[in-house]
């Protein structure tokens, strides 16, 4: 199956600039685009609260430019398509997020993001910016076995971290507390993804990978990296029946526990399909005695127009539920 080669852009050299200007033009009450290409809150967070920053390759919209705003991130450093931003830009982002209580640099675990974040932290130290912490986040159970969690990739499930950490930082929690909270949500989150089709890179114009018409890939990365393996195309219910037990097995979960559910659209899945998939998720969770607190179904971290989805679970307690329900206002996320 061929991918969509037609994209409505101007030129590939200006994709990032045009996109950021477009976002800023649409939501001036929520975000502002700075001269050095950062997306920052239109109304900065109150002084004395921890600033939250993340850098990432672009091409995964609404992640993360759509998640800057009240109750979410203070600053996003969008890199070129699928490319983590370099250390200088990360340092600029950290400075822009400082409100007097320190800055937490969030890193979705990918080699490029991590290396550049580490270099940025070294630069911060050289500059005497020492109230900066880094937290490395991951959730994808297909990228490393249980026991090697810290080698796993950061994928769609980090949505839970962003949303709840954003709410937590608004409460005035300290930098150390924010970092612990991010780790705690991460440690209670697991994700597994599938892909039905490839997509075209907006840079090369070519398909990111090849995918036969009657197969699906289990454990696909957010950049179209090959995953755990190929399966003959399954029905919606059979797909969930294959995915959910793996997540429940990997997550430290017991009957009676409560979870948040995310069905992340990696691009061109229809809501029709996602609702059909959720039906089985709800059914299977109930059978396993796991209570579903709330669900979020839609695109958050995409890989262009790839057809696929990620299923994420996050175990929550009363405190996390409060954070989940707290208000937020990003260009893409208004409450949940």
């Amino acid at each position, binding site marked *: 199956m061929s991918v969509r080669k037609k994209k409505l852009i101007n030129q590939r050299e200006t994709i990032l600039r045009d996109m950021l200007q477009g976002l800023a033009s649409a939501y001036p009450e929520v975000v502002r685009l700075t001269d050095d290409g950062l997306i920052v809150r239109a109304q900065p967070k109150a002084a004395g609260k921890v600033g939250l920053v993340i850098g990432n*390759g672009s091409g995964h919209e609404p992640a993360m430019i759509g998640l800057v705003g009240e109750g979410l991130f203070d600053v996003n450093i969008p890199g070129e398509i699928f490319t983590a931003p370099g250390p*200088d830009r990360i340092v600029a982002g950290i400075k822009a997020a400082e409100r007097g209580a320190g800055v937490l640099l969030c890193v979705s675990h990918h*080699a490029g993001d991590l290396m550049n974040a580490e*270099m940025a932290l070294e630069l911060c130290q050289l500059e005497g910016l020492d109230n900066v912490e880094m937290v490395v986040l991951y959730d994808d159970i297909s990228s490393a076995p249980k026991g090697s969690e810290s080698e796993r990739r950061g994928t769609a499930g980090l949505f839970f971290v962003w949303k709840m950490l954003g709410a937590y930082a608004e409460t005035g929690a300290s930098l150390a507390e924010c970092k612990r909270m991010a780790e705690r949500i991460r440690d209670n989150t697991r994700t597994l993804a599938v892909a039905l089709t490839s997509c075209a890179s907006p840079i*090369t114009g070519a398909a990111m990978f090849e995918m036969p018409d009657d197969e699906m890939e289990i454990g696909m990365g957010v950049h179209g*990296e090959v995953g755990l393996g190929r399966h003959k195309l399954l029905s919606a219910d059979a797909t969930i029946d294959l995915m959910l037990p793996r997540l429940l097995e990997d997550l430290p979960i017991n009957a009676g526990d409560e979870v948040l559910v995310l069905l992340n659209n990696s691009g061109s899945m229809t809501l029709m399909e996602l609702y059909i998939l959720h039906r089985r998720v709800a059914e299977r969770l109930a059978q396993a005695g796991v209570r579903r607190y709330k669900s979020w179904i839609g695109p958050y971290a995409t890989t262009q127009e790839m057809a696929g989805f990620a299923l994420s679970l996050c175990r929550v307690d009363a405190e996390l539920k409060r954070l989940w329900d707290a208000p937020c206002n990003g260009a893409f996320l208004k409450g949940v």
Partner: protein
Amino acid sequence: MTDSMNGADFAALIQALNAAMAAAKAELNALDSALGDGDHGEALAAAFAEADEKARALDKPTPTSVLQVTAQALLNRMGGASGALYGTLFLRMSSAFKDRDDVTCSDWSAALDAGLAGVQARGKASPGDKTMVDALAPAVDAFKAGADLAAGFAAARAAAAAGAAQTERMVAKFGRAKFAGERAIGHVDAGARSMALVFETLDEYWKGREHGET
């Protein structure tokens, strides 16, 4: 002619690398798309174009200043893992050449050691992990066996090319390709190939310079 390179040499080398990367863009993209996201050639070409522009703009280029603007372009223009790694390589070499207007064979040897150490510290990859290190590490070793720059560059070029070719049979331990597992076998690593190209361009540049082409 003395066996050393000055700032003008380095500026000319970056110009040659710019041309080489532009020419190899499609090939490197194709290698990267087999296991990664297909942008390696694009990113290197853009970064070396910017490095070339910045190096030309230098008032009085020195080995250190040329490599430093190159590192900046690689780090901040290229971005990603390979930007950080290539940037670290050039930054460490830039520091190693500090205060030298002309760098000799032994300066090169020390700088390559520093660069390789930086790349490995940053990326944690060892030879055999199917990364750019599989081209860089043997090139650094081979360079040291050379009696002069010409011999060193020629040996490094050959070793890097051989190292890159060997990645075809490896399973990746780093980079996006690592998630492909056994499926990585049969594909040359994009970063190893581009690193081999760096040494090939270096050797070509020096050969041309010796024959009075530049």
